[in-house]
């Protein structure tokens, strides 16, 4: 038992750090460190830089062109990029659909889709949630009917993150109605430029356009875009969920943002107020405890000796921490969190700030992060899962 990273791990970290220092554009990291708006171009620019290095699919095995890193190396990569102010990798392509294609796609599909994902050229979206199915995902209704060598898709997806930029979307669709809801679901890849696909923005409470509704009106999808077998999509989706492991906790971002809380509290003069500072101290312990929890999971993955089935805990604590740091930043601003200047969240805005520039995004971020305890399996669903592991 040892808390320290091995010299090899340290060396690996240094390499990542050095490369990120060289290659992460400062315009982008400045935006991240100040919670300013990232454009599609910002996100894609960074994705392509990573893609060129072969690190966009940083969790991929070597056989598919990935770096073949172990759990700790992946964590170190995530940590170094997060602390340096890199944008989060949009996960739908490299983190979510790619592992499914690797595990259940045929060779042709792998050759067709993986390179575009790895390079960052093709923007993927995720078509899971539907208006009627929130936490109860398996109740989804979007239908895909097989007609010859095509599927005809009709229905609606919702909460589709950044689908306004999407080239492709992977969907869970209903292909069968017998038996349990889970059994009639298939996993289908759909070109968003297909006729009949339309995207409608959903404006969130912070005024931002981050998610969408995606409508399918008699969309023809070649049958070769089906992953694996018909009606087995639920199994593949669950496999995918099992790949969302420690990064669901987002602890590295939390560390970066905790540092920002302190900077803002100092600038606003409340860091020296013991009452406020104590709240930061509580958050600091939360972050350290979450990091220890994450490291324990990583260690278990690396050694294979123990397995720690606590993904639910990571999701709950990680999301609570995200909400809390955004809340504390807003509270640090106090009355200065009341002004709402959405235009001030664009880098290079030439207008006059209220109080100070760093105050402008604080309320927005607080509002925005309310989503974290809802999406990816609400925290209530996660508590169900945790309780199941404890109580049976």
């Amino acid at each position, binding site marked *: 038992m040892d808390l320290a990273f091995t010299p090899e791990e340290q060396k690996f970290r240094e390499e990542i750090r050095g490369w990120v220092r060289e290659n992460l554009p400062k315009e982008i990291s400045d935006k991240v460190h100040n919670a300013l708006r990232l454009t599609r171009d910002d996100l894609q620019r960074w994705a392509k830089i990573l893609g060129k290095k072969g690190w966009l699919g940083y969790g991929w095995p070597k056989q598919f062109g990935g770096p073949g890193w172990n759990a700790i190396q992946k964590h170190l990569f995530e940590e170094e990029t997060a602390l340096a102010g890199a944008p989060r990798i949009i996960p739908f392509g490299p983190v979510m659909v790619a592992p499914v294609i690797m595990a259940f796609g045929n060779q042709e599909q792998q050759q067709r889709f993986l390179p575009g994902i790895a390079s960052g050229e093709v923007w993927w979206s995720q078509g899971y949630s539907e208006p009627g199915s929130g936490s109860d995902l398996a109740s989804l209704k979007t239908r895909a009917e097989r007609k010859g060598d095509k599927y005809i898709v009709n229905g609606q997806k919702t909460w589709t993150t950044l689908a306004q930029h999407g080239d492709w979307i992977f969907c869970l669709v209903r292909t069968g109605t017998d038996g349990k809801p889970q059994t009639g679901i298939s996993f289908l890849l759909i070109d968003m430029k297909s006729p009949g696909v339309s995207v409608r923005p959903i404006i969130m409470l912070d005024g931002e356009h981050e998610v969408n509704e995606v409508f399918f009106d008699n969309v023809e999808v070649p049958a070769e875009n089906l992953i694996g077998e018909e009606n087995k999509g639920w199994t593949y989706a669950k496999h995918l969920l099992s790949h969302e492991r420690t990064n669901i906790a987002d602890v590295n971002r939390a560390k970066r943002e905790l540092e920002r809380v302190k900077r803002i509290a100092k600038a606003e003069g409340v860091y020296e107020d013991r009452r406020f500072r104590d709240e930061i101290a509580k958050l600091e312990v939360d972050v350290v405890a979450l990091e220890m929890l994450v490291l324990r999971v990583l260690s278990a993955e690396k050694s294979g000796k123990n397995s720690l089935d606590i993904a639910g805990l990571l999701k709950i604590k990680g999301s609570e921490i995200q909400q809390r740091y955004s809340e504390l930043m807003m509270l640090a601003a106090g009355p200065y*969190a*009341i002004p709402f200047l959405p235009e001030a969240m664009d880098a290079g805005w030439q207008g006059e700030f209220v109080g100070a520039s760093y105050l402008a995004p604080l309320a927005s971020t607080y509002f925005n992060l309310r989503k974290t305890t809802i*999406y990816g399996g609400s925290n209530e669903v996660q508590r169900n899962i945790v309780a199941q592991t404890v109580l049976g």
Partner: protein
Amino acid sequence: MDFDFSDDQQSLRDAVRKWVDKGYDFERRRKAVKAGGFDRAAYGELADLGLAGLYIAEDHGGMGMGPVEAMVVMEELGRGMVLEPLGQTLIASGLLAGYAPAALQSAWLPRIAGGAALVVLAQVERKARYRLDVCATTAAQSGNTWTVSGAKSIVPAGDQADAFLVPATVKGRIAMFLVERSAAGVTARGYGTQAGGRAAEVSFKDSPASLVTEDGLAALEHGVDIGIAATCAEGVGVIDKTMDVTVEYMNTRKQFGATLASFQALRHRVADMKMQQELARSMSYYASLKLNAPAPERRSAMARAKYQLGVAMRFVGQNSVQLHGGIGVTDEYIGSHYFKKLTELELSFGDSLHQLGEVSERMQDTAGVFA
């Protein structure tokens, strides 16, 4: 001891609720938000209902009512998330009536009561945060005339108001002035607020001013306390509506083949929200009923009330969003606007942590409603 509303108070409530329901629906509000967060016509309608003169004596054209009536009105405005800052009018009229020379009262109170003049408190400064005794704005006297210089932040409807009540330091002591927006050297830079309302950065440069009172800190504290009581009542109104939409959604929305309202873990959350709702209402009553108490008792009561309201507003707001799931974080749905309104109300006149400090510092050996 009696917590029943009189028939007159009930009629007042009905009248305001009717206006909100019929005259200020969500769509009208949304338009007002888009148009900048303040609708002078809507404010005029409030004045037509007599509400701008609620605290103003009948001699000056007002209704001569008290804190309980103000509470009733603010609850109802909270239910409609009305953007126009009637709470500021209560502050300004209460403060002028309580502290200003007769001539100034005669000049302004009738115009305030009629809705012709909107007067707001310009209090926040960059270095002051929620503190009332920090004031870098200064005033200077030359003969019989005063001028004010300095900058005030987040002044409600600050680029729409007709005049400001401005605390300013004179010889190390805070005095209170009235400055017209049209006066020389006044600039106001307006913007929207997080909950859709309007505020402005207002600066004064040798701007002509009328002295309200040399005992400006006492007046400011009193004005802020009127604001706190109004904010508490407004918060109760928003909480009530937040609870309503949450309960309705939970009895409609199905997951796993059953309504959300059937899941015990969620039911218990609602019970906890109901607790906060009733504690908030209790402490809003408490605030209004203590508003005319002597200053130390009044200040202590407002701190307690605003602390409880802050806790309740945050808890109810956050959990309402959570219980709604995805729909709760969309701009389209009214629930997200309740949440934002509750957030902004907590940040107005001191958040929970600030008020906890006020409670802590004012604590006596005895405890309870009357101690």
